């Protein structure tokens, strides 16, 4: 099982690298294609665990949900920019910065990175610190309303948790085993 995962990781890395090579070179003669594929194979064998990490179930479903999540995120980015533009250009500058903390159900590295970057890109909030063990976030909010959106509504946490299927906290069982 372990070996199968590793082979899949190498194969996936190789495919992504090959796609990049073809797109970035744009030359389709035999010499360039073959030398590119050889380089891709070397890179894939040496560093596949940087890109595809460990075992993970339902990878396809997660990728699909991530792709569905991106348009919503892009719309949030537009809203964030309009919000910042309003606060910058308003003569009285309606800002009231504060730092908030909250815990999430997320534990995976990729899901934490996604949520941290999403928080930074959405209206009025920037991630300061993340504690992966507890899924704890420190966030700097520019005013009260964006802070409430994260603390009270929690739309974004729920969406990211839905994408990566980490809605339940599994720390109790892990502690029991240790």
């Amino acid at each position: 099982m372990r070996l199968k995962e590793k082979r899949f990781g190498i194969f996936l890395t190789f495919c992504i690298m090959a796609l990049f090579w073809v797109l970035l070179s744009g030359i389709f003669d035999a010499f360039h294609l073959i030398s590119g594929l050889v380089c891709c194979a070397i890179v894939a064998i040496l560093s596949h665990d940087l890109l595809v990490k460990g075992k993970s179930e339902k990878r396809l479903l997660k990728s699909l949900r991530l792709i569905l999540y991106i348009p919503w995120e892009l719309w949030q980015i537009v809203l964030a920019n309009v919000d910042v533009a309003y606060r910058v250009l308003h003569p009285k500058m309606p800002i009231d910065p504060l730092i908030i903390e909250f815990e999430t159900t997320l534990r995976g590295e990729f899901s934490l990175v996604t949520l941290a970057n999403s928080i930074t890109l959405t209206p009025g909030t920037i991630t300061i610190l993340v504690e992966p063990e507890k899924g704890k976030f420190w966030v700097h909010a520019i005013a009260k309303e964006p802070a409430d959106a994260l603390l009270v509504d929690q739309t974004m946490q729920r969406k990211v948790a839905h994408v990566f299927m980490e809605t339940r906290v599994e720390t109790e069982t892990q502690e029991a085993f240790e």
Partner: protein
Amino acid sequence: MVIVNGVVIALLGAGVFFTLVGSIGLLRFPDFYTRLHATGKCDTLGGGLVILGGMIYHFFHYPETLLVPAKLAFLIFFIFIANPTATHAIMKAAYKTGVEPWRLGEERR
């Protein structure tokens, strides 16, 4: 072509507007953290919109080299990942070295 040019001009204009707003915010906001709010968000969308405009222009005016829009699409993708990560890194460095956040009513720094 007129429609394409109009769309491209609108995208470039919006991109320039957001980049300008980011720069004004950098000057107007009172402290380190709030200034990062302005630059971290506006540069991402501003740069993305400008590149998207270039992509559409190239796609319709030089359809024989389709690789260029594909490369530009990768640029947008990487900007949207790298920009929030860099903002977060600067923010974390400031927080760890003890830069005090500005509160409402204090003097601007």
